[in-house]
């Protein structure tokens, strides 16, 4: 099990050697990253089997927690690790000119693995920063052909300012938690929740949530989304919207599930989630091009995920996880195929006639996004709403109303777009991007996965439920990480 630390270390290793390798053989440096990711996938698979329905903890440096850093491995973290490896492989920049970009992608995946696996608060912060820095770099260095390079740089810079400010907030939150409890290990923190349930403790959570929320596209701090997604290649948007945002969410919910199972924390997530949903959908409603529409729809979906996590306990994790996976498939797929729908909406008339397959794939995605039965999106939305209703309390009811209202708005703008696709082409229509890029193939693959998962709703959901039950339980977490409590428990 100790070897699972290689998930993080191998990409770092690759990142360090890629520049040197590139000096001797550029070809080799191109393949280093994918090879490492494939090895990681194998590692993850073997660990998946080995872990079974249990979980494992890796004590880095051989120091027993809470003094050392711990990696916590269960199916939840392995699932997302697998997704990271797969997603980075899908969007791997095969045609990049600079080997340093490969390094950055490797750093990004290493940071992602670390974020998923680590059970130490400050270690999470370090990986979060690594992820952020790698992201700035990738954004700034990955212009789309048509845009002058520097608009991506400007977007990246604006992103950097808000994201760094968010990181500082995160750091402040960590400082408050450390001052209050004297520990950074999340399992250890979970044993002393009583010292964190006051105003100071919860404000630390608020700082962490909003600080990390910058990456998670949380409501007030997500104005970078449209700027960044508007200037980078669509594959990269698929990576950022599909996966990277989820990693920040995982950071937040680790704290929420293990340490801050309190109504005030749930309410905070609920409110920002609701605002995110409604504002995202409303702005998307006014969007005139696909990318902007997708960007804001992504914000709304992340809001939905936050709403899901405001349900206490394993149910929240279960539904939230389902939502995250669904959003990864749908939004990832939509962004991957967005190149085919580039440009002003009004100029896309007749696209459905021209490439019916693309239109059909698009329809599959959006119908699932809207939650039309029998697509998986419907079941997730149903579960979410029924469970919100079970929570009771006025705010949860408002959330239900918000979600449903947002769905109506979403229908309106998506079908406004679909209508244009199915209109007759006229002189104004732009010639359609006909080159079948590999990302479009992956989009089709995503749609296929979505359709297949439609048939296996029950087994998938049961499986996710098991994973969630296991991962959301602080007891298992504490027992695994702190087998023997050496330190005084203040609670």
């Amino acid at each position, binding site marked *: 099990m100790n070897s699972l630390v290689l998930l993080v270390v191998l990409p770092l290793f690759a990142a360090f050697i890629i520049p*040197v390798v590139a*000096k001797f053989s550029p070809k080799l440096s191109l393949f280093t990253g994918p090879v490492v990711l494939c090895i990681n996938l194998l590692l993850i698979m073997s660990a998946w089997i080995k872990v079974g329905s249990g979980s494992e903890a890796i004590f880095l440096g*051989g120091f027993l927690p809470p003094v050392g850093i711990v990696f916590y491995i269960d199916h939840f973290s392995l699932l997302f690790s697998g997704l990271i490896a797969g997603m980075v492989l899908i969007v791997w920049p095969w045609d990049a000119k600079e080997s340093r970009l490969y390094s950055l992608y490797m750093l990004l995946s290493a940071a992602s693995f670390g974020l998923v696996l680590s059970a130490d608060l400050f270690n999470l912060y370090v990986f979060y*920063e690594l992820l952020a820095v790698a992201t700035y770099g990738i954004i700034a260095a990955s212009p789309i052909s048509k845009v002058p390079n520097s608009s991506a740089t400007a977007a990246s810079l604006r992103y950097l300012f808000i994201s760094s400010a968010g990181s500082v907030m995160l750091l402040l939150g960590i400082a408050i938690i450390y001052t209050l409890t004297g520990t950074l290990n999340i399992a250890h923190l979970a044993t002393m929740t009583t010292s964190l349930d006051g105003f100071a403790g919860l404000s630390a959570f608020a700082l962490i949530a909003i600080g990390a929320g910058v990456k998670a596209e949380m409501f007030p701090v997500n104005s970078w989304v449209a700027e960044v997604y508007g200037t980078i290649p669509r594959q990269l948007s698929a990576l950022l919207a599909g996966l990277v945002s989820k990693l920040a969410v995982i950071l937040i919910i680790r704290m929420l599930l293990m340490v801050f199972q309190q109504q005030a924390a749930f309410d905070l997530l609920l409110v920002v989630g609701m605002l995110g949903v409604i504002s995202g959908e409303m702005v998307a409603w006014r969007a005139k091009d696909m990318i902007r529409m997708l960007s804001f729809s992504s914000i709304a979906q992340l809001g939905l995920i936050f709403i899901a996590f405001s349900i206490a306990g394993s149910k929240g994790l279960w539904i939230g996880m389902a939502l995250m996976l669904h959003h990864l498939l749908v939004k990832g797929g939509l962004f991957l195929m967005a190149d085919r729908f580039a440009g002003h909406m009004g100029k896309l008339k007749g696209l459905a006639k021209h490439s019916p397959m693309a239109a059909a794939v698009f329809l599959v995605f959006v119908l699932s996004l809207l939650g039309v039965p029998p697509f998986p999106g419907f079941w997730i939305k149903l579960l979410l709403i029924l469970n919100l209703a079970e929570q009771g309390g006025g705010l949860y009811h408002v959330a239900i109303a918000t979600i449903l209202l947002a769905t109506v708005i979403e229908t309106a703008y998506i079908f406004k777009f679909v209508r244009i696709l199915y209109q007759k082409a006229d002189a104004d229509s732009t010639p359609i991007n006909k080159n079948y890029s590999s990302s479009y193939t992956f989009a089709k693959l995503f749609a296929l996965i979505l359709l297949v998962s439609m048939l296996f709703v029950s087994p998938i959901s049961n499986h996710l439920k098991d994973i969630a039950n296991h991962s959301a339980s602080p007891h298992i977490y504490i027992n695994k990480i702190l087998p023997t409590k050496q330190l005084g428990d203040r609670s």
Partner: protein
Amino acid sequence: MTKYSALLFISGLVFLLMVITGLLPMGHTPMLVGNAILEGAKDQVGAANVVTSVVLGYRGLDTLGELSILFAAASVVGLVLTKSSFNKHASNNDDKHDHHDSGFVAVNAIDLIFPLLLVVGMYIITHGHLTPGGGFQGGVVLAVAFSMLVIVRPRRVSINHGMVSIIESFAGVSFIVIGVVALFKGQSFLQPLLGHGEFASLWSAGTLPLLYLAVGLKVGAELAGLLLALNTDEVAS
């Protein structure tokens, strides 16, 4: 307008942060982990400087992550500033800076203190586990020393970029290798190896000095590369 609303919210934040601070145990923090480390550091890691034990021992992965961040930053700076496809129309005359040597005082002073800086830097790195300081601080000194040479004499002295990147790769790789060796011995990643040696002597604390050396080299190479990349005109490179 922005100023006033900013002021309003800022004052709100000040108030709330002060309230939070008032609730914190100032000056007598619980230190659960801290005390455990202070008790165990001597035996578990064996470095006189407990901070070093924490940085490289207990929280070695953080340090690796931090090195990666520096590496990422340096890579990005390199990527961003050495792009050949540049929009020239907006270029500004201010950016053209002369390639002449700096003045007599600067050149000679740097020449004079360069060896001194090297020695100091290496000293700080190698004694990181004993006294305050270590890889980061020493690395910075090294980086500044080398880049100063170039900055004061941009035309005559140049640092081989390839060499820098090889050093940084090598240092990073060796950090990881030291960690992975433990893995191969059936232990955990970054578990301290080698004997602890005599406490508070130069050859103590197992692999820690080696790790710090790697960190120092890495930080030095990284920052030197960074400084040079920032300082060079992208047209030139």
